[in-house]
């Protein structure tokens, strides 16, 4: 796992987006199409803003999946990840627009979760994913795989229980007004499925993530720190800012300080 530490959240978003755009263009050039998995959450705002305004990406040939969605939440709810994906990625880029072919796969949290997991999962595994974008939760979760995470499941999507730390984080970020409003279940891409992407770009800004970053980077690889699984992936780049990297030892292997171009 490569780690890049940028000055602040903005610089992080820009650098990660530049990296993502480059990989995306390369995949489009080589295969004529690209499949990506998008992450949601407050931590992805700057990154997605930069990425969706990057030049020279033919989004009409990009096929999009997303990591997770709450069970039982309508797409019009402010916290809905489908709403997030639609408004912050799909409508901005025009994915699946011109071709008349829907090139995005949203997890319908209002349907039968097991069935949705199965169906979107079968679409997902039908071809390899080129790039996966992920974040890391305050409790170290990857997608909605809260600790202890299921490292063994081969299913593409799982129906998972959300723990209280994770649910509280959603309230703190302003998506819900109180803990009781946060759904207790979600559909989440499995850890193994996330690791099947050819390349992973993790975008993790802010001080509130520092402890989780430390656990995932420096402690042992364990279901108790779900994002530590990223270290088993051959082509992952973890983008941090000074705040989220604050607890890392300077001597950690593979840490490269300083901003990447621009």
């Amino acid at each position, binding site marked *: 796992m490569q780690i890049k530490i940028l000055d602040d959240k903005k610089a992080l978003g820009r650098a990660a987006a530049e990296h993502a755009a480059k990989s995306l263009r390369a995949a489009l050039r080589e295969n004529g199409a690209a499949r990506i998995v998008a992450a949601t959450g407050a931590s992805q705002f700057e990154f997605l*803003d930069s990425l969706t305004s990057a030049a020279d990406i033919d989004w009409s040939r990009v096929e999009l999946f997303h990591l997770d969605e709450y069970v039982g939440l309508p797409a019009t709810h402010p916290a*809905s990840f489908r709403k997030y994906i639609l408004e912050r990625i799909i409508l901005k880029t025009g994915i699946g627009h011109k071709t008349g072919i829907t090139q995005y796969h*949203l997890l319908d949290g209002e349907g039968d979760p097991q069935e949705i997991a199965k169906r979107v999962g*079968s679409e997902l595994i039908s071809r390899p994913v080129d790039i996966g974008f992920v974040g890391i939760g305050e409790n170290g979760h990857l997608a909605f795989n809260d600790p202890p995470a299921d490292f063994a499941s081969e299913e593409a999507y799982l129906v998972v229980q959300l723990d209280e730390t994770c649910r509280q984080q959603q309230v703190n970020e302003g998506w819900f007004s109180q803990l009781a409003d946060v759904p207790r279940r979600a559909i989440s891409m499995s850890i193994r499925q996330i690791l099947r992407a050819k390349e992973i770009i993790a975008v993790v800004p802010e001080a509130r993530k520092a402890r989780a970053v430390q656990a995932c980077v420096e402690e042992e690889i364990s279901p108790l720190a779900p994002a530590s699984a990223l270290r088993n992936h051959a082509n992952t780049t973890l983008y941090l800012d000074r705040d989220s990297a604050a607890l890392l030892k300077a001597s950690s292997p593979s840490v490269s300080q300083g901003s990447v171009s621009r």
Partner: protein
Amino acid sequence: MPAPDQALQSKLQSRPRAIPHLRWWIGGLLFASTVINYIDRQTLALLAPFLTQDYHWSHTDYANLLISFRIAYALGQTACGRFIDRVGTRRGLSISVLWYSLVSIATSLAAGFRSFAAFRFLLGAGESANWPGATKAVSEWFPRHERALASALFDSGSSIGGAIAPFIILPIYFRWGWRPAFVIPGLLGFLWLFVWRRIYYLPREHPRITDAERTMILAETESPGGAAGRRVRWGALLKLPQTWGAIVSKALTDPVWFFITDWFPLYLVAKGISLKSGLIAVWVPFIAADLGNFFGGTASGFLIKRGWSLGAARKALVVFGGFGVTLLIPTIFTMNLVAITALFGLATFCYAAFSTIANVLPSDLFTGGSVASVSGFSGTGAGIGTIIAFELIGYFSDATQALPGHSFDKIIVVAGLVPFVGMLLVLLLVRNTRATKEGLVRPI
């Protein structure tokens, strides 16, 4: 708190003012197109008493005019459905309304049987695009729990159109003659076209949709399923049990409707009831059908909201309809006008609930690129079913006239059972299959 999104904000400000609940305005426009469609096609029927005299047409001549419309209409649905899937709803319905409005206007130039027959054929071909097109529009704009209601809404345009046509056509005829009576209704189409061109865009690119409505629609209508919008070949569509489920649901209900509307008065007469005392009774099936349409749409939407799966919510209404239409059968045991009318009313109500589901099945089951095609198939199926039914009814009612008892008994029994068979077939054919997993068909 999520940071305000600059790009989105500025985009919002530069947009024209959003219209809340835009989808229901579009639903209203589809209703209006059905009304105009029916006014245009009713013109000939309303003027028939005068035209048959002016042109010395026999009843056979007149029947042949009707048939030239029917044939074009039945076959046209399959062709137009495909066409609309190809060019899109906006262009497809624009062209078809333009087409049949021009034909309606041009009918004023007709000079005799041949030219009337030709214009009727062209009218049928153009008008046949309405149901596949409106069904596709509903699939593009309405979430699944509102789809049946939206279908019922545009469908009810046919009865409303039929009801108001006399009030538009006949005054024009009495004042200015028959030619303007074809021209003026044709002009309505241009009025509609003007509004349609302004209002109909896909939700995704609509300049006047609210963000909340667009998100709600896009999250529902296009997710999940990567194949949405993929164009499937006719042959491949016809191999799917779901396609046949959609076809039989319409082919085995529509004929019953035409039987009820066209033969009910004759049935009363055959029972020895004078039409004078039964005049109000003749209205009952029409009112019951409209109520049944909306009942079917509302009830299945309600069930979906209650957490029923889409398939269960649709099939519940199909079962309701399949059993309900059998209420026609007990009418053979009574001569009482009130009892007969009540049973016909109930049966028609149940039929209409079933038929609403038949209309909405193509948009439930198929993805963007095939909705209108499958709706077209089912329209053609219904057309063929109706023609067969008419031949059979004519044959049986003549054949049994000489026998003791009532000439209609057998027909009534068959009419009461045909939707029941349709129900069984729908239950059998409409299900999730491998094609569902492959994304050719949507899960139900």
